[in-house]
């Protein structure tokens, strides 16, 4: 019956300091590419990848910061109606780890209560330059009740796992929600979005 060829659609939002590899993670996952030395991505709002999990088509819409994190100027509206957040730091950069509490504050302020947050330590291919130990990150993520994973966008380590695990968790959350869906207070994402002229549905 659906006009769209998927069973689920999720909005996943990446955050974290500039240069930790957010865009690389997205491009590795959605396109299987690792663009070395890539500058800011112009004109790319979000990327889409449809994956199949247990026979169900899951469309992941993955949003990048568009460089607004560089001077700590991410718009609040970026966080709205995200189903999941991937909070990324660079394991070779202590500073990017130290900024995590600040990011968590933003999440708390602007994202929905129900958002799933995953902590990702990227660049494990540069293990010899590691500044943040795995144990420290694990302790931190545990304290913050986050799922934690280390990845390498360059070597494609754990990148698929990151997004697919997340998709699985989103599906089970979504199922739970529809079961217990007597919520009287509306949730984000309940409003209407206006999309533009030429992309109306052809049913």
């Amino acid at each position, binding site marked *: 019956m659906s006009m769209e060829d998927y069973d689920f659609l999720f909005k996943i939002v990446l955050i974290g300091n500039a240069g930790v590899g957010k865009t690389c993670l997205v491009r590795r996952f959605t396109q299987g590419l690792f663009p070395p030395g890539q500058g800011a991505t112009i004109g790319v709002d979000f990327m*889409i990848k449809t994956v199949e999990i247990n026979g169900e088509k899951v469309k992941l819409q993955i949003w990048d910061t568009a460089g*607004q994190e560089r001077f700590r100027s991410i718009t609040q509206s970026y966080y709205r109606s995200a189903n999941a957040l991937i909070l990324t730091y660079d394991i070779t950069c202590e500073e990017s780890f130290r900024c995590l509490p600040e990011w968590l504050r933003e999440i708390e302020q602007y994202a929905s209560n129900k958002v799933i947050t995953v902590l990702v330590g990227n660049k494990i291919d540069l293990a010899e330059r590691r500044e943040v130990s795995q144990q420290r990150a694990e302790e931190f993520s545990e304290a913050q009740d986050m799922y934690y994973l280390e990845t390498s966008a360059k070597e494609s380590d754990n990148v698929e796992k990151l997004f697919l695990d997340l998709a699985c968790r989103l599906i089970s959350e979504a199922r739970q*929600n529809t079961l217990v869906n007597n919520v009287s207070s509306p949730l984000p994402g309940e*409003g209407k979005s206006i*999309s533009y002229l030429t992309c109306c549905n052809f049913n």
Partner: protein
Amino acid sequence: MADSLPTEFDVVIIGTGLPESILAAACSRSGQRVLHLDSRSYYGGNWASFSFSGLLSWLKECQQNSDFEEESAAVWQDLIRETEAAITLCRKDETIQHTEVFCYASQDVDDNMEETDALQRTPSSEASSTLTKPPDSACLAEETHHVTSYEMPAKDTAKNVGKISLEITDVEETLVKESNCGDKTCIHTVSDGDKDENKPVVKDNTDQPKRNSITYSQIVKEGRRFNIDLVSKLLYSQGLLIDLLIKSNVSRYAEFKNVTRILTFREGKVEQVPCSRADVFNSKALTMVEKRMLMKFLTFCVDYEQHPDEYQAFMQCSFSEYLKTKKLTPSLQHFVLHSIAMTESSCTTIDGLKATKNFLQCLGRFGNTPFLFPLYGQGEIPQCFCRMCAVFGGIYCLRHKVQCFVVDKESGRCKAIIDHFGQRINAKYFIVEDSYLSEDTCSNVRYKQISRAVLITDQSILKTDSDQQISILIVPPAEPGTCAVRVIELCSSTMTCMKDTYLVHLTCSSSKTAREDLESVVKKLFIPYGETEIDKEEVTKPRLLWALYFNMRDSSGISRSSYNGLPSNIYVCSGPDCGLGNEHAVRQAQTLFQEIFPSEEFCPPPPNPDDIIFDGDDKQPEAPETKNIIIAKLESSEECKNLESPGKHLQN
């Protein structure tokens, strides 16, 4: 983040209000290198929305601003070369005045005031707790707060609790006023005590068993549920902003809800205005004859241009005079004038017809009323345009102050700005919001003012089966010469207020301070929380939990030539106007854009994310995606709607 700002741009934009943000998106979209700055820590300037605590800090800032001492300007003056002149920018925001806060909700005392806590637990004060204290998280003003207390035994009230001095005030004066002066933020702590001192409080409680009691600390605790707009506007569903959002695809960053009701205030009562055909025929307020009259008139208005003979003779009259000739009953005239055309009584026949036609055309595009409201508040909209700008390479920097423009003496053109680090940033064009300009630049400018009130209430002004209504109400001026007051009531599903509360915005153009302009309307529609509800009718009125009044400067009508000595490549955007729609901001952005880049298209649709092919990519995106579906909507597939194409109704 020790990242340094690039120093070469095509366009530098100062201020992140709606017109500046639209311009930023337009410039960046057409390939310009854009730097977008704001001296504040949040987006939107006077177009912003705040959480409750955010609003309190904003108030505090407004207050501090007026105490601000001018810093010495020596730092950057050394950086100006001999061939250059500087135009200093304003260091303080003077656009907000006469802020006044009233707290009516019971300010229950638990954490800091242990002694009185025991008192609070007595049954008599549970529902209508009597002690007020200054908002702790807010610390709005440093002055002492007088806390009124009526039901407390005298010996307890005499006690000094912390820094707060308790005193019994005259019951007649329910408002305890602090220094009430122009620029200062005044805090009025309002007792929610019973007016009759001797009346048993318990009785007061039993009077309203069903009403929720929201306390001040609940509001503070749930503060992030609030998104309180500084400007209160709606989007006309056929308006310029909706068209621009759709055309530019910026709409993908926001979600909207339909305004569900148009209300009217007549003879002391709030009523719903029937405006669609179905509404008119279902209306119980109208007689059959009235229904026919109204339909006939509205049908005429839709294509009034085709029937010039119907109105030509009345071109010189006001719209209200004209309506009198149209065989409409007084109540219908009232509906048309105030709730459909939403014009002032003095408006001309042609403008009235135009407004009525616009209203009718906007009906039914997305729903039953002609208006949309953005989820999370109006403050989202500028941010959405900023996101678009950033996606196309625009660089964003909040908390970034600009000290001056640098003007090349010979060419007379502005060539750079100097920021608060003394860093020089070069560009070809400069766009600046009015409030950033200094007194010198604006010495000839005469500003209008907007009067605003923000109320948190416990019930809707017109109760129906659904408690999730979004309503607009125009309260006609009480006496000729004053302005109509626009009231917009938002429910919690707009994501602008906590559950079981309503956020009510009042707006009019100022004749006096905001409180003086708006208080009479507030009193007509609401009663303060906890005030005795003697007669039955009063009980049905929603109660005020919290109220804020302020005046905002309206720079919308200022002509470019009123500013002194601005080089031709500095363009000025105005702050929010008083109007209901956003047409002024969109028109201004478009006009300025076309002035700067006459050959460029204004905000063309961006490429579909699915169609973007990266350099060196041989691979096409995997799935053959043809559309972009905007929002992940899992929770309530039933209620969620994508507004797909304009002109097309919502798909359920």
